[in-house]
């Protein structure tokens, strides 16, 4: 509690300091006048040899202060006095600040959402996307087969791997068929990404062995099709070219499509709305074991 005692005793310390300096100057002036110097000359010489009293008092007081903090507090008090003194410019300043902060926040929100927003998956910083290049170094549309993916999953350097691909499907339950962008993912996708579904249970690999499919719907798609109000299983039967499915899983909207930087929406080709687990030729996402490790494997 020394700092608290120091805080409350400062005024007394400042007064004592001023008194000490005054005593010093008085003694020096008396000393000089005793030696025959005139009073006026003695006062001048005493002040000259002592130095700038105000500056010395200030630097002596600083010993008892927290200079950075108190300087900030002084600046704030000065600013508030100025604002009160001139309300017009103060209002303009506040409005400018409000507009500036608001505009900056809005721009950053857009930039964050569009460019910076990290993938909302468990261990997203360890996720990597594997691209396949042919012998000539062209990327093209080289994809991994189901068998190759199964081998990749056994690479010890990886915590896991999922496969995904996308294509356009057709909803046939409406009066007119509607094209939607769908994505197919391997059965371990939900546990790999660490995201729970809003509706239905997580599917597992046993639900979706190689070659079988399960529907996984994004929330807005659920709302658009009404599957969250009706029996999801019945509703889902009308999707995906009338294929039959055992269950429907509805995912939160923030669960974005892996290869897109935008939120999925339904009804427009190019925006994923339906996710199913099946793969034949796929792109691969891997999660490496830790910092500094690179995902690697032989296909």
């Amino acid at each position: 509690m020394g700092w608290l005692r120091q805080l409350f005793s400062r005024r007394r310390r400042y007064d004592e300091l001023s008194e000490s300096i005054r005593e010093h100057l008085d003694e020096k002036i008396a000393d000089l006048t005793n030696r025959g110097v005139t009073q006026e000359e003695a006062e001048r010489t005493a002040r000259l040899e002592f130095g700038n009293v105000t500056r010395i008092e200030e630097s002596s007081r600083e010993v008892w202060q927290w200079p950075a903090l108190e300087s900030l507090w002084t600046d704030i008090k000065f600013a508030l006095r100025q604002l009160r003194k001139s309300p017009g410019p103060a209002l303009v300043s506040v409005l400018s600040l409000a507009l500036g902060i608001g505009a900056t926040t809005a721009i950053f929100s857009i930039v964050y959402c569009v460019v910076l927003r990290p993938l909302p998956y468990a261990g997203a910083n360890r996720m990597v996307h594997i691209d396949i290049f042919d012998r000539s170094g062209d990327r093209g549309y080289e994809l991994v087969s189901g068998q190759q993916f199964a081998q990749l999953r056994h690479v010890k350097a990886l915590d896991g791997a999922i496969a995904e691909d996308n294509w356009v499907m057709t909803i046939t339950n409406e009066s007119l068929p509607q094209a939607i962008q769908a994505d197919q993912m391997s059965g371990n996708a939900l546990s790999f990404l660490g995201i729970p579904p809003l509706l239905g249970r997580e599917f597992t690999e046993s639900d979706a062995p190689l070659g079988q499919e399960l529907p996984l719907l994004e929330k807005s798609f659920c709302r658009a099709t009404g599957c969250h109000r009706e029996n999801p299983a019945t509703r889902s039967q009308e999707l995906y070219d009338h294929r039959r499915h055992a269950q429907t899983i509805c995912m939160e909207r923030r669960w974005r499509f892996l290869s897109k930087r935008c939120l999925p929406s339904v009804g427009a080709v190019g925006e994923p709305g339906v996710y199913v687990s099946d793969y034949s030729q796929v792109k691969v996402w891997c999660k490496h074991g830790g910092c500094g490790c690179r995902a690697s494997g032989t296909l």
Partner: protein
Amino acid sequence: MKKKSQYRDLFPGALELMVLKTLSWRSLHGYALAQRLKDISEDYLLIEEGSLYPALQRMLKNGWLETEMGVSARNRPVRIYKVTDAGRKHLEQELASVEKMFAGFNRVLALAGE
């Protein structure tokens, strides 16, 4: 006061050390302390009177000094600076440290060219 070229800057803590040593000999008020330092340094050191006060405040804050009211040689009421027990202990430690530093400094100066 213009600094003369023959004066060197003191090392950090030197002023505090000289003040503590002087006040451990006798408790003094500010002006008397300044005069005493000036007299015994025989103008070898340039100690500005004003620079004493920040140093005195630092020492008061550290608990090495305390003040009490007294009277000057001209019978004026003045604040007298006294060394506390903590100040004496600090002085002993600092003197030992400075002696060691100067011993090393002198040794290097004496032998560096050989």
